[in-house]
């Protein structure tokens, strides 16, 4: 049963990515990327649009095949043992496209079935997330009729439903209202305190990353420009009081480009 295997503390690093390259035809989306998510850690993938965050995440969850490099989830290879790896991952995709013809209840019931949850644990967890995110009244409406924010909440509930040891979240705070954002932040912080859990979290909202993540990777055009804790990154750019935003712009060499853009817009 997955639920038991998920709750059992798995061995090894939640996630290790080594020299990962992802290509779409001739275009290189991710180039030789290496990082790891350690137990008890929220790890942030930061980057502008098109930096390679989502491509990295899609390779981890098995949506796009890596051109080269390796991925290891608790010591397991997603290519060789996809089912075992997928059992240990809870995923929130970047887009909120789901099974539009199903209601959230039907959708979560499907997820609970595929993840072999018992009726009691599935129902209890669904109730908790529905109540926390205030979506009980939407549970019997087809997903097609729901707002993007509500869809996002349903996706978050689905990702947490089997209490996975690794959460892979692609822009999880998109479309959420401030209340839900706050709940989500608290939830993630407390979630990784248990067992060997890890969270990979992609965002381009640097304030959120600074608040939530123990370590971050800064991606730019598929390349890793910097990695580490905020302090380590500050040391890297030799600016002791720099914010994550300043570090980001420095590492991605966008400072001057931002100044020029603002000037051209009359700012």
């Amino acid at each position, binding site marked *: 049963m*997955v639920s038991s295997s998920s709750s059992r503390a798995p061995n090894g690093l939640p996630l290790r990515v080594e020299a990962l390259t992802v*290509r*779409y*035809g001739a*275009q290189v989306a991710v180039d030789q990327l290496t990082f790891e998510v350690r137990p008890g850690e929220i790890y942030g993938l930061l980057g502008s649009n098109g930096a390679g965050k989502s491509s990295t995440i*899609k390779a981890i*969850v*098995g*949506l*796009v*095949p890596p051109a080269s490099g390796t991925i290891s989830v608790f010591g397991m290879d997603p290519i060789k043992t*996809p*089912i*075992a790896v*997928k*059992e240990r*991952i809870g*995923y929130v*995709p970047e*887009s909120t*496209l*789901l*099974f*539009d*013809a*199903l*209601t959230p*209840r*039907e959708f*979560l*019931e*499907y*997820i*609970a*079935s*595929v*993840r*072999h*949850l*018992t*009726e009691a644990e*599935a*129902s209890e967890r*669904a*109730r908790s997330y*529905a109540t926390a995110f205030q979506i*009980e*009244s*939407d*549970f*019997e*409406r*087809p997903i*097609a*009729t729901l707002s993007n924010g509500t869809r996002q909440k349903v996706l978050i509930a689905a990702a947490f439903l089997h209490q996975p040891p690794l959460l892979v979240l692609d822009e999880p705070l998109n479309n959420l209202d401030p209340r839900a954002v706050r709940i989500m932040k608290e939830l993630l912080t407390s979630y990784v305190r248990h067992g060997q859990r890890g969270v990979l979290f992609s965002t381009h909202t640097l304030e959120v990353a600074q608040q939530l993540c123990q370590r971050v990777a800064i991606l730019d055009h598929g390349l890793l420009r910097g990695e580490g804790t905020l302090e380590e990154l500050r040391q890297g750019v030799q600016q002791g009081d720099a914010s994550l935003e300043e570090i980001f712009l420095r590492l991605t060499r966008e400072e001057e480009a931002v100044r020029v853009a603002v000037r051209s817009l009359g700012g």
Partner: protein
Amino acid sequence: MGWREAWRLSEAPYTEIAFQAIYAIRQGNLPSSTPDEELTEKALRRVTQSKLMVAFVLGLVGIGAYLFLTQRVETALGGGLPRGLYVAGVLDGVLVLELALVWWTGLQILPTFLGSSSMTLLETMPVDERTLDRVGAILVFRLFDAPALSCVVITPLVVAVSLNSPLAGVAMFLGVIAVVSVAIALALLTGRFFVRRIQGARGGGRQSLVRWSYLLLWAIPAFAMYGFVTFSGQYFALVQQLWYYGPAPAFTAFVLSFPFPFALLTASAPTLQGVAPTSTVDPLWALFGSLVYLEAVGALVVWLVRAPRRLVRSTPDAGGVGRAEDLRLVPSRASLAVLVKDLRTASRTPGYAFLILLPLLDAMAIGFWTVVNPANGDTFNLGIAAVATAALLATFFGPAFFAIEVMGYSYARTLPLADHHVLLGKVLLVAIIYLIASGLVLGLTLFRFFDPWLFLAFIAAEFPGVLAASFLELGLLFREARRRGLPIVNLYSGAWIATLVAIPGVLVAAVPLAAFEFLRAGPALVTFPSMGALALLELGLAALFAIGRPGRGAL
């Protein structure tokens, strides 16, 4: 801004609709890695191909009229009917078929049209209301253009040649215009109904029943198309019965029902020219009916110009606030969950619902015919014909159920769902359709057939053959999906693959049926076990082929 400007403005939304129709990205497909321009060209090309395919079928319907108007077929089908009435019957059939086919095409494409948000951006631009209405109308026209033109050009030409009367061609032209306009209007109305009531329908057992009842109504145009071909003999028998025995008001109502007046007017046209002797029905009835319907069609066309845009803007009606009192999830085995998910999806997606309902409707129609037709003496033969048809239809549509996986596809691939669970779920669905269809036939024929055991033996012996066909089809599709590494087929982009895969499937389902035909003269104790053994052998081989390799969740 005029129609020319509206046409220019429709280019971008039309491309968007084509793109969505082919790649189903809004339904959860991953975008392909191919460059966007190439994808767009491919989408436009495939939509054109799909339209031409439907246009071709409609063209065949028009050409088919020529065959039905020959003396030989007339003797077989309409023996005893006056020539004019027989011709009108054939032309009425052609018009009804065209109506059903165009309507059915609309049912297939309108959900994409409605879901594409193709006009949203235009709505925010400084474009006047009238032009926006026209853009909406042009978009709908462009979705139907090739099929509509095929009807409007080919059918009147064929009729004019067949009846050797240009005037008949003109009358048929009017009939086709009326029929196509009504079909598009019906497609739009049912489309709106779908968006507001079906797509937004709440979950829950009672609501599911209501949804399936609605979808049964929805399937009628498609079944009308199929049913008319299957039951053309019975149709002419009905016309004859009305003609000979029916009370006058019933016959007059039949003559005035849409689109019969156009058919009758066309059949009467040669008479007016002195070409062929006629119908025993006064052509004035036809003229009167046609004029009334043409007047209504004129109003309909005006409505059609405005309706598409309003339709695009209509939002789903979620049936009030649904407060879930008891958030209870009842998980099941993975294969069963796939089956339940498919049924729930189909209950809000007419295209899929139709695939499930058609074999059932067919079984009900044949079963019902068996019961009500006193002239029919061989209930057993009709019963097994109905079951055989259900088996072949269920297996023919099996590959299409695979397409349900396109919905939420990118998300579903991140779930720990082994291939064999998906495959078993789909096979279960086909098996259930076959068993329910057979059960319906059995239930209906029990009124006339008091020894059901042989019939039950036939259903049971064919059952492994149906499973074998499904395993083979789905196994082939899984391999194809893996080979291409692509989001599996959807009904638009993968119609050819699904059809190609369905052919060996239908053949496998047909083998035990052929064995039955071959052995039926012998004792039942030999016939049914032989048929069953053959079907079981097929099942073993097909299951080995489909799930022989361990599921790796590679889809």
